[in-house]
């Protein structure tokens, strides 16, 4: 994008979002949602530190952005009906 340091902007600016960081590779355990048990309280969505629980519209079931999910397990720990389980990623 910039050939030499002279091409750099005079102040530090950001050119893209962190969506390009594949933090999902940090993960050891993968969250899996059992949609039969899910009652769409969106507790997982509220508490996800990595913005990796996706709910498009009100009433939708949540899904997981596995490119960015770091596998912390907060969603599984705080899920009221116990619909999320953490499964070991294959080596």
């Amino acid at each position, binding site marked *: 994008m910039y050939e030499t340091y002279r091409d750099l902007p005079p102040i530090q600016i950001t050119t893209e979002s962190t*969506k390009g960081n594949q933090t999902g590779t940090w993960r050891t355990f993968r969250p899996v949602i059992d949609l039969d048990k899910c009652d769409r309280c969106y507790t997982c969505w509220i508490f996800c530190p990595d913005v990796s629980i996706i709910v498009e519209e009100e009433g939708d079931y949540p899904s997981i*952005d596995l490119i960015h999910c*770091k596998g912390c397990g907060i969603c599984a720990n705080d899920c009221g009906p116990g619909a999320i389980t953490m499964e070991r990623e294959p080596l």
Partner: protein
Amino acid sequence: MARGGGELIREHMSGKFIIPREELMHPGHSACPGCGEPIAMRLLLKALGPRTVMNVPAGCCAVIPGVWPRYSLKIPLIDHAFECTGATSSGIRAALDAKGMNDITVVGWAGDGGTVDIGLQSLSGAIDRGTDFLYVMYDNEAYMNTGSQCSGSTPWGAWTTTTPGGNEISHRTGKKRILEMLVENGISYAATVNIAFPEDLIKRAQIAQSIRGPKFLHILSPCPSGWKMDPSKTVEVAKLATQTGMFPLYEYRDSQYQFTEEIKDRKPVEEYLRLQRRFRHLSPTQISEIQNLVDNRLRELDARMEASRK
């Protein structure tokens, strides 16, 4: 009973968003798995909306938004030196006033070390100047970015690299009472909030946003690596901190103190302490000492609230 964590579900209809939907944070930021800070940041930004300018000092918060050229927030952010959160906020506000942009919320977002130790003088100065800004202290109870050194906000008896455990606990008095300190300093609004109580957090942030003058929010934000606990327990531990009385939720508004989450059936502090290995070295006598400290603290708060109502 104070609500929060997984219990939210029983009190709300399913399929409804109970917090604002707009997302002002991108995934892929560089926080550790299970960190409380991005939860706090995300909830706060949801509450304040996109017309916000943030400034952060050194600390985890300087690293988490992303490494150049990538950036995870959808609002402007200024990085600056450790001790000048208050001064930078005053500067941003002055610049916005000069441009006539009065609808923008200025947020100084600092850690506990950057607030109770290093940034205290500039925060005090900003309050003295009456700057219209919101100061947010996310409290992970030590200098976690550099590997857990004791700060003025570390609770009594907690392990850090500079307060190793053992039979003798160092002669510290426990967490600095920063909120009371700032109230004496003349702040307009101050509240303690907790990431495990998201509705309360959003409500307090919006109240703070609606008030002119210096405002202060103290957010408890657990740090799985520094507190030596399972990353999945972040919200559970934060919730227990309030339910055991270790981190009472209260606010100062219109010259009055009041509890924002009443704790009935307070749990023993041991339930909170045993989930974290930073408290593993504590003997039963030391745990009962912490219980005493918490009881005294809550009694003192009650008295303070009574006195402020008169």
